């Protein structure tokens, strides 16, 4: 599915990145080292982390999209880095469980 479709399904907002990018598979987690080793290329990564390091992890793992759940928003510098690196970031009010069910 495309990032833009994912944003729609989640009732979320796409803040950065390319909406046309194809994503597949999903990992949920907030510990960066675990995400680093578990997120596969093109995966949707669902987290409540909002600091700049999520952009580094997404970039290094080639994650397809970061979904920040439970109504949290990325920090300004995190969003700036995500935009620079063309990483898709979606925010949603849904919980990680609700989001993964919808996916």
């Amino acid at each position, binding site marked *: 599915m495309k990032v833009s479709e994912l944003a729609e399904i989640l009732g979320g907002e796409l803040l950065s990145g390319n909406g046309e990018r194809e994503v597949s598979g999903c990992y949920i987690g907030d510990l960066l080292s675990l995400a680093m080793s578990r997120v596969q290329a093109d995966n949707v990564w669902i987290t409540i982390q909002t600091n700049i390091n999520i952009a580094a992890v997404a970039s*290094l793992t*080639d994650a397809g999209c970061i979904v920040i759940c439970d109504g949290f928003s990325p920090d300004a*510098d995190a969003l700036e880095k995500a935009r620079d690196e063309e990483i898709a970031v979606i925010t949603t009010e849904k919980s990680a469980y609700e989001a993964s069910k919808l996916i």
Partner: protein
Amino acid sequence: MEPMKYHFEVKGDDFSVAGENSSKVKKILRQLGFDPETIRRVAIAMYEAEINMVIHAEGGYIDAEISPDKVKIVLQDKGPGIPDIEKAMQEGYSTATNSVRELGFGAGMGLPNIKKYSDDLVINTVVGEGTRLEITVNV
């Protein structure tokens, strides 16, 4: 063929740029046409080591040597050293502070991940003087 050599400086306690050098090496490897699995292993191992330097050691230096058959990353810091390597190699063991944990670090997966994703890992550490990590990923 002579390996390509790169030198990086890591600033301590600056999480806003943590992982940036790993990103640079990843981009270089991609441009050189390395396979995605090798790139992934180098990226994860180097990122963890770079983050360790930021969290525990007030920064340091990284030297990367890229050859067609292997990628070698050497990280040198003047941090506190690792008193108990055996414990540090255990998954889940961490000495990170609460403020660092709030950022999502401190899972105790740093050194275990480096070991897991590299083919060879040599750790030289002296308490009070610093730590040197030599990570090799074979292509």
